[in-house]
């Protein structure tokens, strides 16, 4: 089925958050700090104020204060806890220092440029590399939600005693999400106690909750709306300063204020994937069986928060390894807090793990697929639990077949196409099924249409489309008779789009709500003399595709609509809460203790470990004279439970591979070591893949049924497609050149340098 939101998107009718036409809207523009550390000594707005139609110029001196700052909020739900423009302090380059509100965008933009800010600059710390930086042990990471130390078995001893020892350090550059739609806030106050915010949000409930805390208002007085979102990849799933600054400014000028970050501000306004390096020690037996994984990570964090991706998760569970440990070290620098970016943890973690596995295979002279099969985990060694389902072997087999893996020359540097060196590489992918839950409402009308509602969002991943399909099947209506509404806090609370939980959770919620409708209509039918189900016990009735029937005699029954029509009621409404992951299993299989956002508890809850798996295969061509790397073929095969829509799921997996190719070959935001400022903060300087960089990408799903994870057996796919991609590229480069590239992105300068040195 084609996307239901497709016609609106190809005709320009789809309105994104900054495109909602609210009469009287004025324009907000942020001015960003040019220094990374110090204090503001003076702000001269004289010239700026002369621009036509200026309503106000806000600085830390005159911006109304929020009721609470994030630091004062116990349940602050965002990566960054620092709110700028509360005092004269500057903590990172690009930090907002003023907000101009004017009648036109042109005047606001020009005025922001004309504001003269004088600083007393201190020497900033740019990263964990900085000699001034001090690495520390955070004990817990991600606002205390995750352990900074994980140990299983006796990893160091096992490593020391291993027949084969491999140790390597992997570097990952700063990456920026860079969705095509910049972050945007349109704040509309309707009186002092009622606020509507059109926000580019992956999670309207999160935005609503944080705004309620910051403003000291009841949640229900704040409505957050996101009907269409132009990509997010994580950055729009957290709360950033521009949103509350716009809301405060709008209240002060008593007009709706629209503020859109400029593209350079997108590099200093909505987080990033942090600069980091991982050291991975692997011990194995002489025949390549892992006995120990010792992992450590160093990364940069902000002056206030201990955010870092948990890279270790994937190392703990992907292979059958009895001993494992990970530890994180962070250094505070003058940067904003980093945040989850597509496949947080798994993406850089898999680069280290799957590159080292490739080395191990080469060292032992066995095929990269074979080393993975020798270490295949038949259960999750991190928790000791069986898998709810796992089709990784099938993914390997099918991927190898589609790619022609058996034609690969195992000897590096031997295959040429003209002057170009050709190489083949592969890597595994996995991503957990996190716990989540959400609510949906289904309203079935007697005239044969339905409205289905859940406060979820559609990043472009297909939420509108798949939920329409699920609803149509549940109610026995054609998809065009379903109107699925999302992206509004007035709708039942659903999870945001993040951590790959949306599809499975919202679909399950809709099924629960549909069941509620079924139950109500069945009760009507069994009490209705005109119904073929009159006086039948409700528990003997089944419902499929909108038809109720006697389970023992399926011919005896009628449609939901027939019974509803006779009742004279115009419509009937049901609601329900769906669970995803461990919570679903707990409810349905009688296990205990799920807790969202807590890895350790999640591990202990339920009876099964829940993950999606996949495998990537790629071919590269390396130009030995220029150091350029081109991807020439790509195959991805994944096991993700039920695929709700093959077309949108395939597109998402292709997109995941390409997102990973960006991180592998080109994405690198460079922070100047002296000034801690980004030097390439725009789309000309920060390279993301363009059409000419990308070959045809082949994606397949292997059939997989999983009864434990949720009502429909759906696993998330958004993150999975990117996991292992950078390693597959690096492994193919090794096969092409005999050079192991351990620093991302693998740009021509690094490649040439490696080629100059002996293999």
């Amino acid at each position, binding site marked *: 089925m084609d996307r239901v939101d497709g016609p609106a998107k190809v005709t320009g009718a789809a309105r994104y958050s900054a495109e909602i036409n609210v009469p009287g809207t004025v324009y907000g523009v942020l001015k960003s700090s040019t220094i990374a550390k110090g204090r503001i000594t003076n702000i001269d707005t004289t010239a700026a104020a002369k621009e036509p139609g200026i309503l106000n110029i806000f600085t830390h001196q005159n911006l109304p204060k929020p009721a609470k700052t994030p630091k004062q909020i116990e349940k602050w739900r965002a990566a960054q806890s620092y709110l700028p423009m509360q005092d004269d302090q500057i903590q990172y380059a690009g930090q907002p220092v003023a907000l101009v509100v004017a*009648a036109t965008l042109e005047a606001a933009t020009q005025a922001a440029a004309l504001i003269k800010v004088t600083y007393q600059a201190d020497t900033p710390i740019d990263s964990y590399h900085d000699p001034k930086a001090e690495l520390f042990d955070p004990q817990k990471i991600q606002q205390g939600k995750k352990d900074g130390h994980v140990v299983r078995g006796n990893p160091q001893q096992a490593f020391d005693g291993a027949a084969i020892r491999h140790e390597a350090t992997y570097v990952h550059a700063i990456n920026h999400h860079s969705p*095509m739609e910049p972050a945007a806030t349109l704040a509309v106050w309707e009186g002092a106690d009622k606020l509507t915010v059109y926000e580019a949000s992956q999670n309207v409930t999160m935005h609503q909750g944080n705004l309620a805390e910051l403003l000291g208002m009841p949640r229900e007085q704040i409505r957050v709306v996101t009907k269409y979102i132009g990509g997010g990849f994580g950055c729009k799933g957290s709360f950033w300063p521009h949103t509350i600054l716009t809301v405060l400014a709008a209240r002060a000028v008593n007009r709706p204020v629209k503020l859109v970050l400029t593209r350079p501000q997108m590099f200093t306004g909505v987080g990033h994937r942090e600069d980091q390096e991982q050291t991975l020690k692997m011990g194995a037996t002489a025949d390549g069986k892992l006995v120990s994984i010792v992992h450590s990570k160093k990364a940069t964090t902000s002056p206030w928060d201990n955010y870092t991706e948990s890279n270790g998760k994937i190392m703990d569970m992907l292979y059958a390894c009895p001993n494992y440990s990970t530890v994180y070290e962070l250094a505070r620098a003058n940067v904003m807090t980093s945040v989850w970016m597509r496949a947080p943890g798994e993406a850089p973690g898999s680069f280290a793990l799957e590159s080292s596995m490739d080395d191990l295979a080469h060292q032992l002279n066995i095929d990269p697929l074979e080393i993975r099969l020798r270490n295949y985990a038949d259960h999750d060694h991190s928790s000791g639990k069986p898998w709810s389902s796992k089709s990784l072997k099938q993914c390997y087999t099918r991927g190898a077949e589609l790619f022609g893996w058996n034609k690969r020359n195992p000897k590096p540097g031997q295959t040429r196409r003209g002057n170009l060196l050709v190489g083949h590489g592969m890597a595994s992918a996995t991503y957990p099924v996190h716990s989540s839950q959400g609510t949906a409402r289904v309203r079935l009308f007697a005239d044969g249409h339905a409205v289905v509602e859940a406060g979820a969002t559609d990043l472009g991943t297909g939420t509108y489309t798949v939920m329409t399909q699920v609803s149509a099947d549940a109610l026995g209506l054609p998809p065009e008779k379903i109107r699925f509404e999302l992206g509004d806090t007035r709708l039942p609370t659903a999870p945001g789009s993040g951590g790959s939980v949306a599809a499975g959770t919202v679909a399950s919620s809709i099924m629960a709500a549909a069941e509620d409708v079924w139950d109500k209509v069945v009760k009507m039918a069994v009490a209705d003399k005109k119904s073929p189900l009159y006086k039948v016990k409700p528990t003997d009735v089944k419902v499929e595709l909108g038809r109720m029937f006697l389970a023992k005699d399926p011919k005896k029954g009628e449609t939901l609509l027939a019974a509803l029509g006779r009742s004279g009621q115009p419509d009937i409404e049901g609601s329900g809460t769906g669970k995803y992951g461990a919570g679903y299993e707990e409810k349905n299989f009688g296990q205990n203790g799920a807790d969202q956002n807590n890895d350790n508890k999640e591990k202990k809850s339920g009876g099964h470990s829940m993950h999606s798996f996949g495998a990537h295969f790629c071919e590269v061509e390396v130009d030995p004279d220029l150091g350029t790397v081109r991807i020439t073929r790509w195959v991805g095969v994944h096991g993700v439970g039920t695929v709700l829509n093959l077309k949108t799921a395939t597109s998402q997996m292709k997109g995941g591979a390409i997102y990973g190719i960006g991180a592998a070959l080109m994405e690198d935001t460079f922070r100047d070591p002296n000034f801690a400022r980004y030097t390439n903060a725009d789309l000309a300087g920060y390279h993301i893949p363009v059409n000419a960089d990308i070959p045809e990408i082949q994606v397949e799903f292997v059939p997989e049924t999983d009864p434990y994870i949720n009502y429909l057996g759906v696993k998330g796919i958004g993150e999975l497609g990117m996991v292992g991609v950078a390693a597959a590229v690096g492994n193919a480069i090794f096969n092409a050149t005999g050079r192991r590239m351990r620093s991302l992105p693998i740009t021509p300068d690094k490649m040439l340098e490696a080629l100059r040195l002996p293999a």
Partner: protein
Amino acid sequence: MSDQSTPAAPLNPDGSRRTFMKQAGGFLGLALAPPFLSQAERLTALSKKVEGVSTISLKVNGTVRAIRAEPRVTLLDALREYLDLTGSKKGCDHGQCGACTVLVDGRRVNSCLTLAIMTQGKEITTIEGLAKGDELHPMQAAFLKHDGFQCGYCTPGQILSAVACVQEGHAGSEAEVREWMSGNLCRCSAYPNITAAILEAKGQMG
């Protein structure tokens, strides 16, 4: 909004400090850069000056519409903020991403790098003007069929760029399409599907 649209917000009461050299054409960008100041002065002397807010008439999708705006308003902002035609997207405002691509006299341009006032008298086609009523343009239909997008934010620019790519004769092969469509970024990375859509629509465009 009415055809003779003006923004709801109050307009510039003081236009005296901003001027614009009408018909400065492609030299404008260079002319405004400091090293070329003397050339700018020369051009200014030869050109009619437009100062402050004036009436700008734009022929968009076959209909002439007038806005009251300053000469510094870009075509993209004129479309989005003054005419409420929000199909053209702002991704970078610097000509780096292609989301704002529209057709001006049949040529694809980055509307964020084009001043609205310079496009008076020209035929501007935006995504809103591509379909004939309910009948999608073959390129729109092909993007739907091949799933040439996810979030849809780059899509209007991709589609207009694609229409021009075909009309320019730059859609001869898959490789050619990829090269000539590389000015339009897609972060969801629908590139393989976009390429497939263009190659199919090519055959259906008259």
